């Protein structure tokens, strides 16, 4: 039975089913309260968690997102049931942390991870297209490094306790979400009263959806970065078929729920600054490729005991704090007195993307093993 289920999820139909389920759940979560075209966004939701903990003080994006907790714990459950929970760590952790930081800085310049790029597109937001173009470009550069011998080195099996740290941290976040303790006047824990951070589906539904997705994604190895990488590197279309299923099904679901709004500017929680949408995602895509997984996949790996992915996740949360504290994140398009004001990023954001690209290139060039 276990073997049969594993075989199914390793197949094309398995990943297509998982992509389709995520494609339904994203828009449904939005319908039930999550922010527009942000039914699920790993980068944005980790940013909200950073805000809830007070690591940044952008008052409109602070919430402990149950989806993230569910992703990790759902993956842990799947890994335990299928005997794949393995504690491993030690593959250049500090590099993974740095990649996580810059991955988040790039993602927040675009305003979304690859999952949200898909959901934005599925919601009719055509500015997502240039982001996806940038993402593919970043991954393509990463593949060039992989081909020239880039490798963060092997991880090692380690004490089971190492693998449990991220799942336990998620349980801790869940407790903070449920009991909402106030540690000093006004918080933390911070919960947004306006803006995207205040928009949320009911906790149990968000958590349930997260757990289901975490479980399915662990079994099927769903990864948006891997989808593009495997096509460029190996001409393997399996993961890509899952991502395409997500976008197609999410589009249909959005149409059915009346959430599809076609446009090239003024889209919800998005800006139409083409250059920085592209460059932000080039940086993010390159960082994901060098670290071996998109933000979602890193959560699922962390859930199955991978301490290196856990470090990447912590890097992303730190990157979110840096993004908002240092005014690096993109500002959405806005309507002011009936006039569209195109958003974008500050000069600090531009400099940060530049620094991030240089850092990733240095990592790519200096961590190559000569192949025989």
């Amino acid at each position, binding site marked *: 039975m276990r073997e049969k289920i*594993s075989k199914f999820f*390793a197949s094309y139909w398995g990943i297509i089913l998982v992509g389709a389920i995520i494609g339904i759940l994203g828009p449904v979560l939005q319908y039930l309260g999550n922010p527009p075209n942000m039914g699920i966004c790993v980068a944005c939701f980790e940013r909200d968690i950073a805000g809830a903990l007070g690591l940044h003080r952008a008052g409109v994006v602070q919430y402990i997102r149950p989806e993230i907790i569910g992703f990790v714990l759902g993956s842990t459950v799947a890994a335990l049931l*299928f005997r*794949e929970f*393995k504690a*491993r760590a030690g*593959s250049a952790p500090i590099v993974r942390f740095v990649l996580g930081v810059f991955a988040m800085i790039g993602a927040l310049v675009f305003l979304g991870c690859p999952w949200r790029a898909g959901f934005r597109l599925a919601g009719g937001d055509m500015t997502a297209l240039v982001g996806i173009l940038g993402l593919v470009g970043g991954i393509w550069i990463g593949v060039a490094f*992989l081909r020239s011998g880039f*490798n*963060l080195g*092997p*991880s*090692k*099996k380690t004490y089971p306790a190492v693998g449990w740290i991220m799942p336990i941290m998620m349980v801790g976040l869940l407790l903070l979400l449920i009991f909402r303790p106030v540690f000093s006047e006004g918080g933390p824990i911070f919960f947004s009263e306006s803006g995207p951070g205040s928009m949320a589906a009911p906790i149990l539904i968000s958590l349930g959806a997260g757990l289901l997705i975490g479980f399915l994604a662990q079994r099927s*190895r769903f990864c948006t970065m*891997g989808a593009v*990488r*495997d096509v460029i*590197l*190996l001409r*393997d279309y*399996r993961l890509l078929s899952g991502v395409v299923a997500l976008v197609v099904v999410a589009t249909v679901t959005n149409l059915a729920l009346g959430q599809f709004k076609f446009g090239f500017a003024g889209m919800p929680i998005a800006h139409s600054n083409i250059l920085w949408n592209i460059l932000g995602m080039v940086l993010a895509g390159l960082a994901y490729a060098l670290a*071996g997984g998109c933000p979602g996949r890193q959560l699922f790996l962390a859930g199955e005991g991978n301490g*290196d992915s856990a470090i990447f996740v912590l890097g992303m949360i730190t990157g979110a704090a840096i993004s908002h504290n240092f005014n690096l994140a993109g500002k959405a398009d806005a309507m002011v007195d009936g006039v569209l004001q195109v958003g974008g990023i500050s000069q600090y954001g531009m400099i940060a993307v530049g620094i991030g690209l240089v850092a990733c290139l240095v990592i790519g060039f200096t961590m190559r093993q000569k*192949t025989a």
Partner: protein
Amino acid sequence: MSTAIDTRGLSCPQPVMMVQQAIEKGSFPLEVLADTVTARENIVRFAERKGLKVQVTEQEDEFTLVISK
């Protein structure tokens, strides 16, 4: 004489890339050691796509894959 590749500890796509290189060199039978199910699945899928045969044996959380023509 078989060629052995040790992919243990490496995360994807490294294991598949190592197998890809060895296959391109044409060294068969190819013995591959892997320690994650993901690496096993990816190597099997890659080899089968190339029209090769793969035999998998599992021993204490580790896999030995023998790839042959």
